[in-house]
């Protein structure tokens, strides 16, 4: 489950509870009910919480993401805040200077939002649709593979080796992305295949 109800419930109670107790202690007993009624709840109470893992180094700190909107309910979700997950055994709620600013990466002004194409000799990108971009890639793969795949070596052994196309995979993607990438890249016969493990 993506939502930790008990934690949200705790925050909701704490938001009003702290105010009530403090006012009571200060001798405003009569004002308690009125005060509690108009104290604004903690902002994060209205958000959806999701468990995730920091995307930077391999300490892999647990994080909680707070979003406006709930993806599980079919809504769009806007990321508002990220904090360390106090229940996580490794980081126990702490984050480093990179992890603490993680939201800035998700919402960076230089995030890519649409496919772009750069023509030979051009000095800028132009927009391109997904369909056109994907067709262009598939055609380029097919043409280069048909032209340059080495099916058999000079001894007649089937080698299905393709060296004129290469692929660098991403060490911040999931195992599942990695597996699908592995399947497709290997099925094509690509041997110039690596990830950041070598640098």
């Amino acid at each position, binding site marked *: 489950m993506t939502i930790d109800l008990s934690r949200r419930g705790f925050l909701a109670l704490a938001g009003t509870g702290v105010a009530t107790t403090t006012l009571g202690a200060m001798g405003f007993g009569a004002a308690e009910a009125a005060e509690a009624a108009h104290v604004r709840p903690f902002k994060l109470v209205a958000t959806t919480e999701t468990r995730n893992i920091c995307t930077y180094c391999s300490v892999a700190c647990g994080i909680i993401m707070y979003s406006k909107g709930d993806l599980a309910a079919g809504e*769009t979700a806007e990321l508002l805040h990220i904090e360390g997950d106090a229940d996580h055994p490794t980081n126990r709620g702490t984050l480093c200077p990179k992890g603490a600013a993680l939201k800035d990466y998700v919402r960076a002004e230089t995030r890519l939002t649409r496919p772009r*194409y750069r023509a030979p000799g051009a000095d800028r990108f132009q927009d391109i649709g997904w369909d056109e971009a994907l067709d262009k890639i*598939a055609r380029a793969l097919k043409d280069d593979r048909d032209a340059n795949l080495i099916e058999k070596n000079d001894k007649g052994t089937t080698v299905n080796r393709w060296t*004129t196309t290469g692929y660098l995979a991403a*060490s911040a993607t*999931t195992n*599942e992305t990695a*597996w699908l990438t592995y399947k497709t890249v290997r099925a094509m016969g690509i041997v110039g295949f690596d990830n950041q493990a070598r*640098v």
Partner: protein
Amino acid sequence: MTNSWTDIKNTDLVVIMGGNAAEAHPCGFKWVTEAKAKRGAKLIVVDPRFTRSASVADYYAPIRPGTDIAWLMGVIRWCIENDKVQWDYVKNYTNATYLVNEDFGWEDGLFTGYDPETRNYDQSSWEYQIGEDGFVRTDPTLQDPHCVWNLLKAHVDVYTPEFVENVCGTPKDRYLKICEMIGETSAPDKVMTSMYALGWTQHSKGSQNIRGMAMLQLLLGNIGLAGGGMNALRGHSNIQGLTDVGLMSNLIPGYLAIPRESETDYATYMSTRGNKPLFPNQMSYLQNYGKFMVSFMKAMWGDKATAENGWGYDWLPKLDIAQYDALRMFDMMANGQVNLYFCQGFNPLLAFPNRAKMTEAFGKLKLLVVMDPLETETAAFWENHGIYNDVDPAQIQTEVLELPTTCFAEDDGATVNSGRWLQWHWKGATPPGEAKTDTWIMANVFQRLRKLYAEEGGKAPEPILNLAWDYADPEEPTAEELARELNGRAIGPVHDPADPAKVLVEPGKQLSGFGQLRDDGSTMAGCWIYTGCWTEDGNMMARRDNSDPGDMGTFQNWSFSWPANRRVLYNRASCDLSGKPWDPTRKLIEWDGQKWAGFDVPDIAVTAKPGEVGPFIMTPEGTGRFFSRRLMRDGPFPSHMEPFESPVENPLNPAMRGNPVARMFEGDLAQLGDRSEFPFVATSYRLTEHFHYWTKHNRVNAVLQPEFFVEISEELAAERGIAKGDRVRVWSKRGQVWAKALVTRRIRPLICDGKPVHVVGIPIHWGFKGAARKGFGSNTLGPFVGDANIETPEFKAYLVNIERAEGEVMA
């Protein structure tokens, strides 16, 4: 890591050498602090710079970049000389007593069999003596001059404290103090841990640096114990996972091998992978290789992979050379031999050495496809950014497609931490604009390519047309579907080998462990070491029980740890010969008379009686190796080699440059600099405020560390007339950068071979995209040469020159 982040709390002594965990892995370093506070553990830091890790160390010593092997071999020598050896462990759990071929030897810094023409070794003498019974010959008395122990003693003899001081620049008194601290952990109830990172890997002999420490840890009896081990602090959040799943030129998931073309069929491929035990009763677990391999082939090609066609063996690519690693591919690209290249979440223009060569290489592609959440310098390699990217777009004919992808916040799946925990995460944000998941992009590219082959025919279409694609939506396989494939399931009934009438797993059911894999085609699994991560009981990677019953930091019900949910590798070695923990207060497992049990999954058959089966079950020996036989290209022991660009000669052999078997492409040899022209040692490093080339896109991190700088000592600054904050030019044989000078006392000149050696520290984090100021990285200057075994570039030790530069050039 053999152990885990949370296990570090169990240690008595932490050695951080070849890394800087306090800055690069701050929340993991917290466990060092925990060990210091709760156990009174000590921290030793050895680094060319007085880093933030050093600032909280109990003892610090400087070292010249690229001399770690001499330093470590010297510690081994000191421990042997002073009898700081865990003898029961060494005699029984390592190959110390084994006899080696009498032809094996070492002189002038080289092992027997070296051929300078081919820059390669004939390794035939690097092997054990095998008796008539087919098992290895040993001398338990350690008297035979050819036993591994005596060869090791002879090998390390040259590395005296004086030799180490002269080569490494580490003052002798500091060195001896550290030797004493390390030596104390040879006691059976004292444990040391090694934490290292790119400071050890990014050398032309990086693998041998790590071997050196692994050997020391065997000598001290610290492998397999809580608070011990060899702990690689990996960089990216899933670099462990991508390596596990085999996304490298020469790998199949689970550390199996892509075939060589000399292995003409499946039977030939398997003929050298029998992994026959070298002692009676040894487990030699990789005898099961065929089961893992066939299950992988079934995961790739499903029903089309049959016993008759060698499980689709012909469809796998076959290598004609050891590997088409990234350095080789970029060299081929620079020579016009690559047409099409994909960069998925990877920014090689800033990550690989000799940037001018990288720019030239990309300019020779027909099409570059970049898939990334962020703008990258690689996707814009053709853009002119003044001195920061001095190119003419009109002269570059490469087409570029830049595709927007999701990031961690926008997808589901597992990443594997440094301690091998597969931790599931959930998406919580809508992707920006038209950004898509990498799986959607890969599936769509593949579906279109498959359609072209189906409609048009073409070369070797079978591996593409036959690829298993059993997903509800062929254009968007889900993380759950893919994770279940990685785990594996029964295709046919899986029978009990002891009772063939009995069915262990019914067809269609998820497997619960790799012991259920078969080589008869009745099982499939994408990555055998992950089997157990998604069973019939559900997603084990999503488990979130953070209780820790033994208080040993093993957290057995938190996520899933490969292999088999084991948290400390080789944990059988944490117990003595009778099966009792070396240190009862640090118990992971023990033999209870009937079986192994405790707070971790035993790394041995649970009913294997103590004394019958050696603790290192993955090796045919059952022991850890001081002498690594023919497994490393540059020798069975680590031997001191200078960096390819070095301020001094190699005292073992003044004619030897760098690693004598490291691969050097022709044009790159001419681009090596000489100490007369480039007198200073450069080393790259990372800052705690930045992650590679990503966080320069974040306003907060860009404010914290806005501008590229290089770090030099007060002495070098004085010698070159450079003041704090001055603009400087730094150049190597391959390029030049401009930076702000950070003059500190964190870097001090070292005395090596009687002369002062100055070190220039160069952080890696700047480019010409993002929120930070435009700048450079260390890769502009670094040499295009990699480690002899795995081709990791030598970024940690090369030569530069530096001078004060006039004025600020604005981009």
